[in-house]
């Protein structure tokens, strides 16, 4: 039998990998996927808590998070598409006009 805290640690590790990905990757789409990974890590934690507290509310949250993730993916990918059409690149560092 595996204790609940083990699942939490797994969620944390996955979240950390997602964080590193977001910070390191220069590819916009990979950054995006890392964000999805982070969302899922949070979901895993929610389910673990739900199990630990014996209440189902965490499941409802996970469901809602999934919806948000889907919406976010749709909009985000549309943005990627629009950006790519304008600049012919997916290098995130090229979009640095948001300063001064």
């Amino acid at each position, binding site marked *: 039998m595996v204790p609940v805290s083990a699942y939490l640690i797994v969620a944390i590790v996955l979240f950390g990998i997602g964080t590193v990905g977001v*910070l390191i990757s220069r590819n916009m789409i*990979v950054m995006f996927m890392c964000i999805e990974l982070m969302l899922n890590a949070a979901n895993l934690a929610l389910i673990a808590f739900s199990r630990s507290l014996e209440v189902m509310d965490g499941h*409802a949250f996970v469901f809602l998070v999934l919806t948000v993730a889907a919406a976010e993916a749709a909009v985000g990918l549309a943005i990627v598409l629009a950006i790519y059409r304008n600049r012919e690149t997916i290098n995130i560092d090229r979009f640095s006009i948001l300063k001064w």
Partner: protein
Amino acid sequence: MSLDTLIFVISVIVAVFSATMMIVQRNPIASVLYLIVSLVAQAVLYVQLGALFLGSILIIVYAGAILVLFLFIIMLLNLRGNEDLGEKSPLVSQATKFIVSILFVLELVFVVRSGYVAESIATGVADTGSTGFGSVEDVALLLFTRYLYPFELTSILLLAAIVGAVVMARRENRDIQQSMFVEQTPSETFKKGQG
């Protein structure tokens, strides 16, 4: 080592490994595939935690739909992993990013380890089904009773996302008008110009 533990360890190894592979891959398509593998492994963990319904949703919706959308975009943009991504960041900055992330992970682990989370229940696949915890009925009951309004609001969110995606992704107006003109016969355009 019991069966539960075994399944847990294997799933964890698969999930963490493929997540790591996802970020080190240069080819985005490989990244997506690794992410799908990672998600499937996570779905196993979900099921172990009693979330049978959400586990299947994760595979169907996430791996099946959202990540396919990613694949679709990557193929649309014809990305092959050989794009110019500029020069790499300096080593110091990369190291900083790693250190910050690791610090963060360590902090969270410390939080879990230091007893902030009750170590009440151990879990296993065997638990599922017996109590109905995490079954479709229970999740549905919750969504349509206590979380009815947030649930309904998600529909608005999705609608807004659809509209947003369409607006962001469509071509410039100029292009559309041009294509409309092309569809007209030249003589009509000429007459309009005269009139």
